[in-house]
């Protein structure tokens, strides 16, 4: 019977061509959208390594203040903020935090392995405590690490696994190409690209505010005590301004940064999903139309088949089968192009994301086809053979 269905669809290929084309285009758009959704979902389910709640992200602008003076003021500023009762913990570090839109990537090497990794520079205060980072191995930075010629660094777990596999990372040497770094600890997670983006891992290095060869970090990370509201911002700016006269402080709440990021990221996805939904609706209406038309045009054929021994159920299965064959032809064509996405890595995603998207897209199209074909096929099955045979 399957061969018969393929034969029928093939012999009606001219009439079916547009339908196959519609299924093909819908599949491609669906595949692209689902690839992005699957990738985002997988990223979303990976831990960030910190909670955005209660973290305030303060960008410092010191304008024309001479560097030596700026170093002293920054140090005083960190100390002053640590004394405020509303603040649980303070850290001074590079601004490339999640949701900030900044990134800083350095190439790390170990033997013949190489990988670009996000680089976070910690300069003052207690970054581990502020971001509540969890160590799985080794230790966090201590006094003196920033001046050490061993260049101590901490790496995240995924970086550790990439370079060292199951072996302990502590004590191992990594290279940036210009300098050698010594791993002193491993942080389980710390993602700087936001939860919907992929992340290549992070390494932390410590620099000293007193080291004139280093750039002064321009971002304060403040962990607020529970219950502290945005009303504290005014006091914070007043306290900071008292230490750093003429400097500008841009205060952002990390949970707010997070929701802005999610909104920004999801807007194009939602737009694509809407386009996709319209295309699918178009295919659904097309399938409905084609089947109604086929049933009306093939009324006498239905009667004939019933006369020749087909049961109502077999007629139902035949019409459903024909539309599934049509869908299969569209999907074979679509899958051919979708596989090129994987081979050429068009969207820069993990191969398994494409495979999931391919599977889900095929399933969605088949489900759509079955749902749309259900009623017309039932209608065909219900046609009375004696009446149908009198139709010309």
């Amino acid at each position, binding site marked *: *019977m399957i*061969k*018969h269905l393929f*034969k*029928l669809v093939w*012999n*009606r290929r001219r009439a079916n061509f547009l339908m196959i084309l519609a299924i093909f285009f819908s599949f491609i758009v669906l595949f692209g959208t689902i690839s992005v959704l699957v990738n985002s979902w997988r990223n979303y389910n990976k831990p960030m390594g910190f909670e955005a709640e209660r973290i305030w992200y303060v960008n410092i602008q010191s304008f024309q203040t001479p560097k030596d003076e700026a170093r002293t003021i920054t140090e005083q500023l960190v100390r002053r903020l640590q004394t405020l009762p509303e603040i649980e913990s303070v850290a001074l570090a590079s601004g490339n935090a999640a949701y900030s839109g900044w990134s800083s990537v350095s190439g790390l090497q170990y033997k013949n392995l190489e990988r670009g990794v996000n680089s976070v520079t910690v300069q003052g205060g207690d970054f581990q405590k502020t971001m509540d980072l969890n160590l799985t191995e080794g230790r966090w930075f201590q006094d003196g690490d920033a001046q050490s010629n061993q260049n101590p660094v901490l790496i995240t777990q995924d970086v550790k696994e990439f370079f060292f596999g199951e072996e302990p990372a502590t004590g191992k040497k990594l290279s940036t190409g210009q300098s050698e770094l010594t791993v002193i600890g491993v942080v389980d997670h710390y993602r700087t690209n936001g939860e919907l983006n992929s992340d290549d891992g992070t390494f932390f290095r410590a620099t000293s505010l007193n080291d004139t060869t280093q750039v002064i970090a321009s971002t304060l990370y403040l962990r607020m005590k529970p219950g502290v509201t945005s009303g504290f911002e005014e006091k914070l700016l007043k306290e900071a301004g008292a230490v750093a006269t003429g400097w500008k402080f841009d205060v952002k709440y990390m949970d707010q940064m997070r929701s802005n990021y999610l909104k920004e990221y999801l807007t194009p996805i939602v737009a694509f999903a809407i386009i996709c939904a319209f295309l699918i609706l178009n295919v659904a209406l097309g399938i409905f139309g084609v089947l109604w038309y086929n049933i009306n045009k093939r009324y*006498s*054929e239905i*009667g*004939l*088949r*019933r*006369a*020749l*021994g*087909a*049961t*109502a*159920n*077999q007629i139902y299965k035949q019409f459903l089968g024909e539309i599934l064959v049509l869908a299969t032809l569209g999907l074979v064509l679509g899958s051919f192009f979708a596989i090129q996405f994987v081979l050429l890595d068009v969207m820069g995603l993990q191969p398994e994301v494409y495979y999931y998207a391919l599977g889900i897209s095929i399933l969605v199209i088949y489900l759509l086809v079955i749902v749309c074909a259900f009623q017309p096929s039932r209608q065909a099955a219900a046609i*009375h*053979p*004696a009446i149908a*045979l*009198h139709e*010309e």
Partner: protein
Amino acid sequence: MITLSDIEKVYQTKTIETVALQRVNLTVPKGEFVSIMGPSGCGKSTLLNIMGLLDVPTSGVVTIDGQSITSYKDKELAHIRNEKIGFVFQSYHLVNDLSVLDNVELPLLYRSGVSGSERTKLAKAALDKVGLSARTKHFPNQLSGGQRQRVAIARALIGNPAIILADEPTGNLDSVMGEEVINILLNLNRQDGATIVMVTHDENMAHKTERLVRFFDGQQVSDSKVFDLQTV
């Protein structure tokens, strides 16, 4: 053998009740070639539909080979149609998107246990019987009316049914082609012993068969051997 006992068929709408058949009693023994005649609307096609299990009577009993099919469900009726009945229609009812060979194979698609190669073999044999073995790959729209009807006859034959029901098989054909078709049916009856019930408007065609049953306004008005008629 088909037996119709006290068959009545009434079509009912909200406002009108139309009696298509009234108290029809008819037995067609195995191997007989029966013609059914009557004016348009007298119930001939309704009778053929009931005999072919395509329609159910309002009352009465249809018996095929001694089995009453009154209580049969759709699946069982379809099975009997497939195994025991072959249909030939006035307008051929060929599937235009299938080749001649595929059209002839159709009844065996609904019969379990027949392989694809066996279907093809039987279809070729049936087409050979109606003299169309050279046209297997043609499509219906590439054939003449007579050829199309011969394809339809081959399709009716392929499953080796006990009964062939022909609804005005020569109605759309000119006299030469009609003659060809009736001769094929006569051969099937005489040589292969096929039971044939044929509805026709053509007295000449009807007189080639063994028995003629006439209908008028849903009632059976005469039933006689053709030989008797010819000699009267």
